[in-house]
């Protein structure tokens, strides 16, 4: 995983609340056995018409959305299924952060393991972002702040261990494997052999 310290990008905005993982990546694309290449199916049923032609009105299809790495979404992003294909699709497309007022638990956990920063922002800053699609914002993991082009900065919560892993490109598996002695001791206590 690439370390992330700061992100700076124009925003793509999906002002829809409760965006579920079936919208992020519909189930028919889950028959893959790899994690690569899902970006082309991101938001497939919103992004493309029945004929496979991009819908011009959809936020990600507008020319100004090209190259954006920060997605701003309505309240409660990523609810529903545990499919990690959702953050895989978002990162494969090019997103590095998702900003919302609430992010569903399993999605947030999956996002963190794939270098996608979940940014939980206060309602006032969120409202500003929803109303200013394409605004150039920056996200700093050192200070856990999101800064608007107005210069106004908003703090966001990020669990310290998750922040450490993102900033250092560390994956949790290495950390868990390093707990071998404690795991073995637990198994001995519990009679697991």
């Amino acid at each position, binding site marked *: 995983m690439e370390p992330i310290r700061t992100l700076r990008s124009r925003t793509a905005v999906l002002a829809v609340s409760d965006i579920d993982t*079936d*919208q992020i990546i519909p189930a028919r694309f889950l*028959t893959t056995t790899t994690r690569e290449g899902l970006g082309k199916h991101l938001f497939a049923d919103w992004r493309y018409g029945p004929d496979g032609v991009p819908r011009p009105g959809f936020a990600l299809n507008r020319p100004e959305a090209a190259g954006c790495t920060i997605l701003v979404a309505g309240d409660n992003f990523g*609810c529903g299924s*545990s499919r*990690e294909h959702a953050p895989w699709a978002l990162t494969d497309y090019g997103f590095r952060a998702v900003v919302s007022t609430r992010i569903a638990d399993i999605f947030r956990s999956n996002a963190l393991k794939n270098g996608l920063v979940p940014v939980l922002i206060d309602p006032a800053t969120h409202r500003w972002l929803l109303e200013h699609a394409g605004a150039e914002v920056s996200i700093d993991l050192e200070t856990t702040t999101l800064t608007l082009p107005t210069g106004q900065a908003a703090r966001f919560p990020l669990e310290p261990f998750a922040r450490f892993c993102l900033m250092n490109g560390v994956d949790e*598996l290495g950390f868990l494997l390093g707990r071998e002695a404690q795991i073995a001791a637990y198994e001995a206590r519990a009679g697991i052999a």
Partner: protein
Amino acid sequence: MNAPAHTLFEKAWRAHEVVPETADTPAVLYIDLHLIHEVTSPQAFTVLRQRGLQIRRPQLTFATMDHSTPTRTEQVFGGAPIAIEAAARQVRELESNCAAFGLELLNLRHAQRGIVHIIGPELGLTQPGKTVVCGDSHTSTHGALGALAFGIGTTEVGHVLATQCLLQRKPRTLAINVSGKLPAGVGAKDLILAIIGRIGVAGGTGHAIEYRGDTIRALDMDGRMTVCNMSIEAGARAGMIAPDETTFAYLAGRPHAPRGEAWERAVERWRQLPTDPGAQFDKAIDIDASTLEPMVTYGTNPGMVMPIGGAIPERAGDPVFEKSLAYMGFAPGQPIREHPVNVVFVGSCTNGRLSDLRLAASLLRGRKVAPGVQMLVVPGSQQVKRLAEAEGLHRVFLEAGAEWRESGCSMCLGMNGDLVGKGQYAVSTSNRNFEGRQGIGARTLLASPLTAAACAVRGCVTDPRELM
């Protein structure tokens, strides 16, 4: 000094702390039971191979196939190939991964195969106080037996395979106290839909729910599993119900349940699990079950739910709400009863157990599915299928004009060939009415097995009490 009072969740959590959490690091939590399936496991095995890792405790992981597998008998048993090539590839890959890593697999033709959340309890793998995880959000189902059970992503599937542990922050606790007798025609599905309607699809985010009270105690295990199953639809990390005599009677004699003296010792241990008097929850809400009605969803998330006799709410100036109703083809203020239905689906990890099939059959017996309506009845496991057939339930469904299939996730999610057509209305006993969940452009109305059967008979949204 008295021992401190703990909740059921707290007891299960503490018993599995390999390393407790600190301000800087999450807890290392030991996992007793890991269930895997064909869709969310392949990439985890790839990581094991890339890093040269073995499975730490192969005897604690069980594999089945359910999500992308076909339900048509000829594709399961009849020698016809699986119609979706990518699904066939996933099935083969799970077979080769389990063989290579020494995992027990209930493969496509296995007599014990079924939906992962149906077979865990059914085989006695799921037990009170255990930690249970699976790469599927409806793992919350297993909490009905007093287990701490939650869904994980594929990266975490790899963590469990390699270390039998997960890094977890402790969730907060939410007590949902349910009291009063459920009225006739109103069941566990209506109760959990009403709860989600009350607290919203993010109402449980960051929390482990414990369902409590006399209504919950009176539910059978199948009903308790329906309730816990949909905890995730309220955003909750887990849903739990304290084990009691109903739980023990359900588990006794199941293939993986302890036997003899080990059983006695286990029950003794399980009796210590219920929340102690005076233990504190972070949040609590009360629900009166005695006034509930059959519930049905009208929108595109499970929180958009109403009593079946009601009118669709109005929320002027809410564009997301309007977009949702536009997708469904509904108007604010419109009654939902009598609305035509094209498809009825009875099945899924929410309502694919024997009691669910009995309920649907009780309403269909001696009646016919309305002309033009497709009804699919899909047992949650091959064992549920055999038990239903032993009671003759399959004949009730077939004589009514419904289809009777092999077990699997089927029409709950559009990835195995069982699909609802564009613009069609499906009354479904599954758990999600998201846009496109059952097929591109499909419109899903979530309801109980009784309501689903009533809708099939009338060909329109029908209060089951009219046919009881």
